């Protein structure tokens, strides 16, 4: 394992009890599955990756003590499995659905949205989002949301998912991804900016235009 620095010296028997904490493991499995499914976009592949990561964790359990460290470690195993999978499978995304219109991100998007003096460009000022029914039952909205998520640059998407879907805290993400707190915050800002722009272009503005 690459994250040897996370290892805590301890009795093997004390570590393996983690697997007997059913509530903890169930919750962790669910989080892993969410994470994997969002990245590989195939529930069977995701399930396999989680299974393999869990098995690998079980076989190497003697290195781990604390549950927090355990979680980080298992996720790092899972991430490697996902990377392997993504390398093998040609990733199929629906990003092509969103090809029309500028698909800017990072500094380019910020330049596009704001004037030099730091104020909103006239056409880009956020308007109220009318939400006729973007409810969970509106399948079309979630398709757009899904596509917008897919269209995020990979790094934005990963950090955004860790924060918003896995609900990992800042220190955990920074430790896991080896990024500084300020860089994480800026990346999340850019991810949200991009996602907001995409949702507005492909859902909210469209609604009001028709």
């Amino acid at each position, binding site marked *: 394992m690459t994250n040897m620095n996370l290892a805590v010296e301890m009795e093997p028997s004390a570590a393996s009890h983690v697997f007997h904490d059913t509530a903890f493991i169930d919750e962790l499995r669910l989080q892993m599955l969410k994470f994997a499914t969002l990245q590989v976009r195939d529930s069977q592949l995701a399930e396999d990756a989680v299974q393999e990561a869990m098995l690998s964790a079980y076989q190497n359990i003697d290195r781990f003590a604390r549950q927090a460290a355990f979680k980080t470690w298992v996720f790092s195993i899972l991430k490697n499995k996902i990377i392997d999978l993504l390398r093998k499978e040609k990733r199929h995304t629906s990003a092509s659905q969103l090809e029309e219109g500028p698909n800017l991100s990072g500094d380019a998007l*910020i330049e596009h949205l704001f004037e030099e003096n730091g104020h*909103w460009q006239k056409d880009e*000022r956020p308007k109220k989002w009318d939400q006729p029914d973007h409810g969970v039952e509106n399948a079309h909205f979630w398709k757009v949301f899904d596509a917008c998520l897919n269209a995020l640059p990979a790094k934005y998407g990963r950090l955004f998912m860790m924060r918003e879907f896995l609900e990992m805290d800042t220190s955990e993400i920074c430790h896991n991804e080896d990024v500084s707190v300020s860089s994480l*915050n800026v990346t999340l*800002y850019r991810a949200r900016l991009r996602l907001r722009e995409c949702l507005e272009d492909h859902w909210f503005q469209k609604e009001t235009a028709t």
Partner: protein
Amino acid sequence: MMKCKQATQMLSEKLDRPLSAKEKIALTMHTAICTPCRQFGKQMEDIRAMSKSYAKKKESDRD
């Protein structure tokens, strides 16, 4: 005076860390007079809520 560019970043960071008293005051003053940034702030919270529903939905899709 805080500009929209900084204000939008603060409105995002607000979701990730507690703002300092100084930041809160500057942001409140800005959003009091800036409708687009006020909308932006609401939309940041909307996006968080949507993400929550989306993740929940993914979970229930599996069952």
